[in-house]
């Protein structure tokens, strides 16, 4: 497939996943802030910190903004100048989809376009004031619809693999960030009663869409060790670091990418990260959660950076003779 199109597919996957993840995080944190007897600052500031936008938020809206749930939500949902706001993710996903409509097919385009038209229109703005939870739910359902259509309507070949690679790498980063955010909240709630501790762990699982899967696996027992190990290493849970990393690596192997420098470097980095996580597990997690997660996030970011513009097969090889469809 055309290298530029591969790049668009990759980013389309990332933006759709990012919009979903951000909406879910806001939705869960909002619930947490209502229940958890924690000051708002302790609930909302970590969300802004792990999104990487804490300095910008306080710069634009003042030092107190991170403790103001409404301000944080507005900033993370609507702000045009926040690169990771839901608005910018939906917009970028829609622009990406528009430029590769002929590759992704009509259904995915229409789902993405409808989300965009709804979100930018008056209905979403009004609903945000009246029934905010429904706005987050709508975003999540639409993005999930797009991703479901990817797997059920696209040919399972290169374009879908690039798109799914984007989804998986975005998701590793998001799960790692969410865990790290929880680390910040937990730190603030240190010494609190065990009931609150449990509530926080459950909230974390919800933030990763893992509540029910975890409860089934553990039959209702909640402990720090098992939650952390579930989100890091449970290979059957589609949002754990291990699942996402291994799926991404399998996609790298499926895609005949060995010809281009960028993808080779990224693949090697992610393989090393996968081995490093294995070692951490064997050694009984010697690092603090924060140090471990920071390493994961940094490596994923570096890997995605290496992929940037790296989807081009090298020119000095013999040309591909057959149209790809015939192969």
């Amino acid at each position, binding site marked *: 497939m055309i290298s530029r199109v591969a790049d668009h597919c990759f980013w389309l996957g990332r933006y759709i996943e990012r919009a979903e993840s951000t909406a879910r995080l806001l939705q869960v944190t909002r619930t947490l802030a209502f229940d958890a007897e924690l000051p708002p600052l302790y609930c909302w500031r970590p969300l802004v910190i792990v999104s990487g936008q804490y300095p910008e938020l306080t710069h634009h809206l003042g030092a107190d903004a991170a403790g103001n749930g409404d301000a944080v939500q507005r900033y993370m949902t609507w702000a045009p100048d926040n690169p990771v706001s839901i608005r910018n993710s939906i917009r970028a996903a829609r622009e990406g989809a528009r430029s590769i*409509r002929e590759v992704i097919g009509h259904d995915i385009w229409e789902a993405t376009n409808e989300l965009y038209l709804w979100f930018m229109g008056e209905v979403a703005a009004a609903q945000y004031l009246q029934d905010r939870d429904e706005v987050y739910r709508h975003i999540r359902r639409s993005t999930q619809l797009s991703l479901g259509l990817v797997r059920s309507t696209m040919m399972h070949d290169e374009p879908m693999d690039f798109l799914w690679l984007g989804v998986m790498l975005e998701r590793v980063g998001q799960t790692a960030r969410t865990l790290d955010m929880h680390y910040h909240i937990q730190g603030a709630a240190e010494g609190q009663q065990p009931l609150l501790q449990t509530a926080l762990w459950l909230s974390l699982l919800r933030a990763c869409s893992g509540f029910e899967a975890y409860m089934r696996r553990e039959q209702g027992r909640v402990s720090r060790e098992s939650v952390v190990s579930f989100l890091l290493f449970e290979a059957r849970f589609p949002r754990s670091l291990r699942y996402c990393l291994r799926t991404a690596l399998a996609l790298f192997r499926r895609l*005949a990418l060995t010809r281009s420098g960028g993808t080779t470097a990224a693949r090697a980095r992610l393989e090393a990260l996968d081995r490093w996580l294995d070692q951490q597990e064997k050694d009984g997690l010697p690092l603090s959660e924060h140090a471990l997660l920071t390493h994961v996030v940094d490596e994923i970011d570096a890997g995605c950076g290496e992929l940037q513009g790296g989807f081009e097969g*090298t020119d000095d090889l013999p040309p591909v003779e057959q149209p790809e469809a015939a192969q």
Partner: protein
Amino acid sequence: MVLIEQEVARLPASMVLDGYRALEGTYDELVETGGGTRKHALMVANLLANMNADTFARCQALAELALAQRGVTFSVYSDDRGTEKVMPVCLVPRVIGAGEWARLERGLVQRLTALQLFLDDLYGEQRVLRERVIPAELIFGSKHYLPQLKGMKPPGGVRIHIAGIDLIRSPDGVLRVLEDNLRTPSGVSYVIENRLVTKRVFPAAMDRIGVRRVDDYPTQLVETLRSVSPEDPARSTIVVLTPGPFNSAYFEHSFLARSMGIELVEASDLFVSGDEVFVKTTLGPRRVHVIYRRTDDAYIDPEFFRPDSMLGVPGLMRAWAAGRVTLANAPGNGVADDKAIYPYVPDLIRFFLKEEPIIEQVPTFVCARPADRDYVLAHLDQLVVKAVDEAGGYGMLMGPDASAAELDMFRERITSDPRRYIAQHRIELSTSPTWVAEERRIEPRRIDLRPFILTGKSGSWVLPGGLTRVALRAGSYVVNSSQGGGSKDTWVEAGATS
């Protein structure tokens, strides 16, 4: 939406078409001067007979929502990033009778055949110049004539693979050619999308009446392109070349690639090596054989056209000249749809085909001819003046509506550069019943028609119908989408011949 139609049947009187009258001195596509409905258009009258303003407004809103969700948009260049707008559509279809269409089809193929022979001749022997069918200075003065191409033959032999011929109907009921588009005519995607919307909103009606289908256009197009490949058509790679998502017709580029199942590329995806064209893929370069390019000549190849430009694919013209890649349409076609050449097309048909033109055109004054120029300058306030190298309704003077300052400006321009201008008496374009949202009723609005003609190795094929554009503003003659125009579904009556 079937429900709506059933509901409609029970509604009281005061229907949306009640009191509809043709404009004075204008041909209406639905009703005759006496008020009776034209026979072939009865299907539309029947469709609307049971609708009041509320039901029609609901159908219209459904149609607009469907188009927005499907992303049927065009971009307007008025700001940096290009704003996307949904192509305005009027749900009242325009109908063409079977008999008239059959004649039109013959006339379009005749015209295209002659224009193709004209281009072959111009970039070959130039008999038209030697035998003075066209004044040489008009050819050499055309900015779209490319003397560098003289002697080159396009791979596959065809030059005008895709043509869009603009037609208008004058008050005497005669359809006339207003303009030829032989470079990158656009609009066919709206034809197909409009039909989808009509089917969705009026399912029962479309089921009952015989309308010729339009959805096989992409299949016909890809077969046309395949047939002119320089290599084995079955093993050829065909691509659509777009300037990118900010181009005003990007929706169509994407639509065509998608519905033909071929790749949409930008210039930066292609490169030329050893006179062959390649596309950069994740598996390395892959040879490309046919390019349906939706970029202007000037942006094809910086080596050839504009050394200062970064746009285009360096070496593409070399590959074309070497016969290793087919460009559709061929470079250099612009000279044949130059507005200054247009007045001579009937003569070209007679010269090359020894036939009389089947389709009329609009009598035209060529300002390069001194007698014509004097007439134009003396009657400027009655004429429509067009710059020969502009399109989309730009560079135009509507004499009857113009201010004194505008008239003076054009008088000066014509005097200083007569070659650049032609003039015509304003034709009272025919009207079609059109939904006027603000008034919540149907009124006559002016329309034109752009049929599309595909030409491959084995001859020409005409898409039944084409794009009907409508000037949505009351009193307006300008149908261009960039200037307040919309479109309509165009129904060709299925006749005994089809």
